[in-house]
């Protein structure tokens, strides 16, 4: 995979100054509270929503959340919050921000 020089510098910067990578590298930030709540910040939109499965686009990869009685508690452009009984949270691809 080709890595652009700009991304490389940003990765370095983030590592060196211990800056939050989601800000510098434009990566999603996931907050999971128990199996009750999942907050995805910096997402790219909802792909699929059923009470048993939620797929959220993260740009290069997809986040697949399974569970039961899943509810979209709120949906903003930057942030999506899912409530319910979470079963699994899976990424379809590696997400390093280096692509």
């Amino acid at each position, binding site marked *: 995979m080709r890595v652009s020089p700009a991304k490389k510098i940003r990765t370095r910067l983030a590592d060196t100054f211990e800056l939050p990578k989601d800000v510098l590298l434009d990566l999603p930030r996931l907050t999971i509270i128990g199996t009750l709540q999942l907050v995805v910040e910096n997402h790219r*939109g*909802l792909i699929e929503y059923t*009470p048993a499965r939620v797929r959220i686009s993260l740009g290069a990869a997809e986040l697949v959340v399974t569970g039961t009685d899943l509810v979209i*508690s*709120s*949906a*903003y*452009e930057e942030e*999506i919050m899912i409530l319910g009984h979470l079963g699994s949270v899976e990424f379809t691809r590696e997400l390093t921000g280096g692509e």
Partner: protein
Amino acid sequence: MFIRRFWSYLVGYLVVSVAGRQLERFVNLMAASGIIMWDIKRQGTVLTGKLSIGDFLRLRPIARKTHSRVRICRKAGFPFLWARARRRTVLVLGAIIFVSGVWFLSQFVWFVEINGCETLDPNVIRQVAEELGLKRGVFKHSLDLDRIGDGLALRIERVAWAGIDYAGTLAIVDIIEKELAPSPEPVGVRIDLVASKEGMVEEVVVLRGTATVRRGQTVRAGDLLIRGIAGEQLPGEGYPHVQPIPVKARGIVKARIWYTGRARVPLELVRECRTGRHYQRLVMKAGRQEIILWGWRLPFEAYDAVATSSDLGTGRIFGFPIEITKIDFYELERAVYHFSSEEARQEAIRIASNIALSRVPQEAEIILRSVQAVTQDEMGVEVEVMVETLENIATYPP
């Protein structure tokens, strides 16, 4: 989260359902255009969610783009509730009257509870509290609780402090009672210490007053031990310039006290004992007639008889009682016990000691126990045991 919920309730919100095939896209488009929908749930091809009234009007282009149909399921929140309330004025009025009625009634004292009475009668406090204004049906805000509390403490001598608090319509009066100090000893009154029983004085400790007995002296019950006069001038000592004053005498006078116990044990003891053989008889008593139902022939010469009767409930049933008596006979035999004089003496000492000790008070200190006299004849042994104790015999005359 809570603030958002509360705000949306305040300004009102709509519960809508969205039916279509591109529901995910619908959500994405909403998010992109800044429409906030929350609590989004899905059942098959229908999405339900909540959103504000303003956002609902902006939903139309999105619905058209995604070929979905949007329908309002429910209008919720305060504005809608208010609109409904305005249509039902009487109901709202009734609710307001009810709530304000409850509030109004809660402004009065309906119950008075009195706590903390240990020796005082709560009814007395209740009565005084009523006189001070704290009674059923009085307006709460018209009472000065501190003044009533102080009033209770002032009016009732045994109350050290009284505090009043409201718990709704219940007024709780907390009482702290005064601890009564022991009544002070009378001043200027002479109280002597006298002997409670006969004995020989062993030790005299005077705390207040003047001793009138000495060690080795024999006293009888009621004899003066310590005179209730302080500063008395005794020959060879004392304070000549001090005027003797009457006091309540205090002190300890220990004396030797003797207790005796006497017991006689015969050398030959005849007793009747049950042999273990047993015979039973049943007797029916009807009026004055007695009929032996069972056990005519009594085989024993000497016996113990134990009778147990029962009317079997016939007295109640037939109007006159038929009584059935069960008699248990236990055969007895004479047994003669012979004691040696030594055995008899030991037994007599044991019995006599117990008799003497039973007369000794609990707090007495036993200093000696001795056998005083043994007299023996051909019939038995007689023994006298003496117990010597050391006791404080100083008491106040009754």
